[in-house]
């Protein structure tokens, strides 16, 4: 059986207006339908720019200089508008607060915002809102003012607003970085549920333990270039990882120092379960 590629990026290059350095430099990769991809790398490595390029904000919102090709769900981003791309791919940003449209008075209406913009039929709209309220565990809050939610709830609302538009892919750019552990956990659980529903997930994240736990594949980015794109075990086992400003999960760090490897694969543990297996004396 041939697995469908939901994202195909070929030789993507991009430079922001009024800058001289390429923010993205010759990036090529593809993602299978339903995969969970983690993106890691240090600040300003180009992670956010790549996310913006996948949804079309680069180049449609920012302009600048663009080369190569990004195809999502069969649609080439460059030849489509951001609004049109919204049916195929959505994005969630860092700050939960800025993603509240501020035009709606209840969580229920807030989710409808995107659907109204796309001119959706009301019966379908109500069906979809009920579905995402349930999927993201927001049903009890449906009549609340969006600004009265906690950070974690707001971020789940942002995801709900995107998922209601039924994209094949959702991109999350450090969605938990401004949340406390409880809020982060809520968001991770929600993302996991989406993944189970078959949504392709691309997630930038600093919490490596979480990436190791959830992602099928991890991409390492440095100075606008893609360094590696592999399984979490292989990627975090790289001995040169620290050179790219990335610290692996704490379990991997310990295992590296103690040289504890899985004998069959020759790789270090990345999750607590793997660590427990390898470290028991």
């Amino acid at each position, binding site marked *: 059986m041939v697995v469908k590629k939901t994202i195909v990026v070929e030789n993507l290059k991009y430079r922001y207006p009024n800058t001289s350095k390429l923010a993205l430099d010759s990036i090529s990769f593809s993602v299978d339908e339903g995969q969970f991809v983690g993106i890691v790398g240090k600040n300003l490595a180009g992670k956010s720019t790549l996310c913006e390029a996948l949804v079309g904000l680069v180049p449609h919102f920012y302009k600048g200089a663009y080369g190569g090709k990004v195809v999502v769900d069969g649609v080439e981003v460059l030849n489509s508008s951001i609004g049109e*791309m919204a049916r195929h791919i959505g994005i969630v*940003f860092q*700050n939960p607060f800025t993603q509240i*449209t*501020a035009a709606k008075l209840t969580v229920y209406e807030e989710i409808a*915002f995107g*659907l109204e913009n796309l*001119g959706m039929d009301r019966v379908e*709209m109500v069906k979809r809102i009920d579905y995402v309220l349930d999927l993201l565990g927001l049903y009890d809050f449906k009549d609340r003012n969006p600004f009265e939610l906690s950070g974690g709830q707001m971020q789940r609302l942002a995801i709900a607003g995107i998922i209601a538009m039924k994209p094949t892919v959702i991109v999350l750019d450090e969605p938990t970085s401004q949340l406390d552990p409880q809020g982060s956990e809520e968001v991770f659980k929600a993302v996991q549920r989406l993944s189970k529903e078959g949504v392709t997930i691309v997630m930038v994240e600093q919490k490596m333990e979480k990436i190791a736990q959830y992602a099928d594949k991890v991409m390492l980015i440095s100075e606008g270039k893609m360094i590696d794109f592999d399984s979490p075990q292989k990627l975090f086992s790289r001995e040169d990882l620290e050179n790219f400003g990335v610290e692996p999960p704490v379990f991997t760090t310990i295992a590296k120092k103690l040289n504890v490897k899985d004998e069959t694969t020759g790789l270090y543990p990345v999750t607590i379960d793997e660590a427990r297996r390898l470290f028991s004396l």
Partner: protein
Amino acid sequence: MARALSLYVETNTFLQKLDPMVKLLYILLSILLPFLILPYRVVGLTFILISCLLLLYGKVFKKVLPLLGFSFLILISIVIIQGLFMQSNRTPAFTIDGLTFYKEGLLYAWTLCIRVLDVLLAFALLVLTTRPSDLIQSLVKRGLSPRFGYVLSSALQIIPQMMSEVGSIMDAQRSRGLETEGNLWTRLKAFVPLIGPVVMSSLLETRERAMALEVRGFSAIGKKTFLFDTEMTLLDKILEWVLGILLLISIIVRIVWL
């Protein structure tokens, strides 16, 4: 927690259910009619009376008083200043403590009072009995660009959010030794460190919010739909016609009479 700004009072009378356009027409009528049909004061007073009765009926009359507060103070000072000093003052009306009030000035002040109350009460009827979001949606349906509708509704929600940051900014700057009390110069100097962070962060946030809107199809071309679509009732339509025709007749009458 701060909510959306609004003076709306939920009392579930017929006024709350009335289409906002009817109330807008009423405001237009109450401002224009006194000018179109003379005598000004009689027509103005009639509108004030109608507005008061409607506000009473809508169970929001008590909420009008705080709205009148500021205007009321000026109106009193107008009565005093015009009554005492207006240039066309000729006929003394009465004298208190050696200060003579004149008829002309008092009459002029009376006219101004009617004008202000007329406008104020008509607007009060709108703002006290209409949810701002309903007003905006109603305007959008009648052709206001939905993008401008967005600006209005988001302003109503963003402002309380921004105001709620005021406390933490005060705390943060006082923690760095900023004095917010003392002589005028000290207090004036404290203004920029306080407003600065609000301006910077709110402007910085515009970029991400703009992107978040874009990816939810904000600029999508094509017809929008509404989650809640309230149809105008027959009564709304009748009232809209009646008020419209009334306005038209008075304009015609005015033109013919001149």
